[in-house]
């Protein structure tokens, strides 16, 4: 192998692939990144056997060939590489020679033949999703995924594929996020898609995969992410990078029925104001559950957020918010509430509820019309008084 590529591409490719490499591996080769030179491009592959990443960058290839290099080492090397336009890579025997500007290095590698094969996609891409939209959704739905492996299905994000829309959802059984995404028909392989969802329309994608995807998607580009689903695995492709991951085996809990169809009481207010009120109350909230109370006075058009504990004392913040519907008083976990408010990306937040024992919803507000937006819903269960 002998090739020249831009240093910028080279660094980015390493950055995007290196992270999936697990820290502890039974198989030493899994600590490595595979570099393959083919006509017109250089391909970097890395995997932890749950997720695989393949990054292609354009390169001027003189001689094809492949080798694997320890990922951490390559990453440390590339981050310390002084700026230069191009990088020259060459294999001689079991070593990789790198030359970039004034820096020269020879790195010992392992033969590429032992490197795991990254699964190849056998089916067509189902649909394309706008990178920015997907990034926005991912950052929101990841909030509620469970960290505890006790229920494996909750450690992933549930994706439901409907004819006209996608539903991303996650829950750790105490709160739930759902984000709806309309499918752009132009970007959808409608025929194949409709056939596919008849067979299978409910999958669970591991949270780690989506964290990786979120990093790989570059927010500044007007790009798209292409998605394909096969038995037990999912493929994403964006910007020349392919991400393949296993899917979580299991049945995601049915959640649609617990989302209230309508809410009686509605509170709308400034996100920052309510954020600080909840944070203040959580200072006073006692115990691991850090319970705070939310009192909505419909007559006075006021919201009181407060907490009290035996050891510390008590507090209350009075907020003059837009209140409609009957008065309510609920107790909620401050962390769960705050997580929900934090994920809201509009400057106004809506809190919707029915009673002290039914789910409470947090939604976004259209800045111009002041209407409650329906795509994103964060639901938290109040604590029983």
């Amino acid at each position, binding site marked *: 192998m002998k090739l020249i590529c831009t240093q910028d591409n080279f660094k980015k490719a390493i950055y995007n692939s290196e992270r999936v490499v697990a820290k502890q591996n039974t198989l030493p080769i899994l600590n490595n990144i595979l570099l393959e030179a083919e006509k017109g491009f250089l391909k970097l592959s890395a995997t932890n056997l749950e997720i695989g990443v393949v990054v292609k960058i354009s390169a001027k290839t003189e001689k094809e060939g492949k080798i694997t290099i320890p990922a951490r080492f390559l990453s440390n090397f590339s981050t310390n590489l002084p700026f230069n336009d191009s990088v020259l890579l060459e294999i001689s025997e079991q070593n990789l020679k790198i030359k970039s500007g004034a820096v020269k290095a020879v790195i010992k590698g392992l033969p590429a033949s032992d490197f795991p094969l990254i699964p190849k996609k056998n089916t067509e891409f189902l649909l394309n999703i706008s990178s920015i939209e997907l990034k926005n959704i991912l950052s929101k739905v990841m909030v509620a995924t469970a960290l505890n492996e006790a229920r494996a299905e909750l450690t992933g994000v549930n994706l439901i594929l409907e004819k006209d829309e996608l539903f991303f959802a996650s829950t750790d059984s105490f709160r739930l996020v759902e984000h709806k995404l309309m499918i752009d028909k132009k970007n959808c392989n409608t025929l194949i898609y409709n056939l596919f969802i008849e067979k299978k329309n409910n999958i669970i994608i591991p949270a780690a995969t989506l964290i990786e995807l979120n990093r790989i998607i570059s927010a500044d580009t007007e790009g798209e992410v292409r998605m394909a689903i096969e038995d037990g695995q999912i493929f994403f492709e964006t910007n020349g990078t392919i991400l393949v991951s296993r*899917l979580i085996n299991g049945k995601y809990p049915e959640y649609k029925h617990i989302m209230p169809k309508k809410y009686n009481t509605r509170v709308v207010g400034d996100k920052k104001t309510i954020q600080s009120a909840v944070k203040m109350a959580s200072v006073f909230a006692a115990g691991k559950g850090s319970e705070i109370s939310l009192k909505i006075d419909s007559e006075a058009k006021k919201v009181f957020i407060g907490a009290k504990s035996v050891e510390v004392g008590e507090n209350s913040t009075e907020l003059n918010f837009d209140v409609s519907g009957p008065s309510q008083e609920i107790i909620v976990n401050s962390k769960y509430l705050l997580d929900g408010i934090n994920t809201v990306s509009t400057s106004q937040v809506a809190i919707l509820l029915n009673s002290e024992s039914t789910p409470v919803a947090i939604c976004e507000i259209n800045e111009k019309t002041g209407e409650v937006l329906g795509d994103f819903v964060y639901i938290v269960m109040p604590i029983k008084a």
Partner: protein
Amino acid sequence: MTNEELWQSALGEIELSISKANFITWFKNTSILSNKDGQIVINVPNGFAKEWLENKYNLHILRALRNFQEDIKSVSCVIATNKESVSREPSVDAIIAPPKTRLDFQKTTASGHESNLNPRYIFDNFVVGGSNELAKAACFAVSQNLGRIYNPLFIYGGVGLGKTHLIQSIGNEILKNNPDFKVKYITSERFTSELIDSIKNQKIHEFKEYYQKIDLLIIDDIQFISGKEKTQEEFFHIFNHLYQLNKQIVLSSDRAPKAIQILEERLRSRFEGGMIADVSKPDFETRMAILRKKVADETIPISNEAIEFIATNVKNNIRELEGALNRVLVSAQLTKQTVTPEYVSQILSELISSGKKKGITHKHIIKVVSEFYDIDPSDLVAKNRKQEVVKPRQIAMYLMRTELQYSYPGIGSKMGGRDHTTAIHAFEKISEITKKDEKILEEINFLKDQLYTII
């Protein structure tokens, strides 16, 4: 050969031909999905394993499988997707209310942990009756005048009569009024094991220092230090130290200091130096009062007659009384029945019939008494006046009277044809002694226990 056996055998073969790391990485969680017409389909956990097994290890696997089943032509892999998914609790709601962590807003005394006290035990919920009046009064007085009167305070009585409740109440009362006081409640068993630990870790000095700084030391079930010499010695020193500083010491035991066996004389005399109060079995009225108090907190209606029935039939200790009530309440709740005396008698029939009065005869008494005093049963009824059998004989007669309600002439004839006046004399004499001599009383109580457990 089943698929599973076939795969296990093949794996055994493959394991030998590749490295262990490779084997674990690629063959973990694999199984044969189907075996049809020589075509084997292997279930693999992910796409990586599928690619690897199909492309790199295909020959290995084929060769290994053919050793056991010759007609195998090909091997392919699929990623496991349990389609008939082992749907774990499908009906469960996706989200539930988080558990409430703050159980009660009432104070749980800040130092509750260090003092070992159970905050539930307070004077306010202690039911006072004739049987425990003195003990309660003494404990309350101590809690108001710590270390100045009744030091040490020694409470004794049978199991489940409220000793622990009373002595912990002192601690809780003190902490309520003076949260800064150092209160330590410990059982003598824990005390012993702490002492042993400190000796083992060569921290006996710290152990002593810790105990000598305490304002109120409560030791439960002190009788267990009997026979433990080193514990007694250390306890003696701690006791003296605290006593001289006018720090309060409260002890409880299941018997009077006199009746604790193998207790050093100097400790015994110290225990007796303060105030000794006993709690005895609650009378009917107290039992009623206790039940009423418990029932008041419950939502289930329970009639007065039903309470009376429980109070009449469960006599021995308060713990049993509460247990019986709880049993009635829980089963009433489960079966959604109203609590009537008939219902109670049905629920408690087992408890009551296992009650102790049944089936004891004079023969049991003679047996137990003769065994306890280590004399021959025939001597007990024989016509002689040997010194060593006189007292046991009287006690046997006393027990026949109190426990079996035999008539005096009846007792006389059961005891080898004695006159009924002999029986009267024996009963009166023992009754008189028990009022004065703790030791005899203790013996009699022990005999009663023996008598009822023997059946």
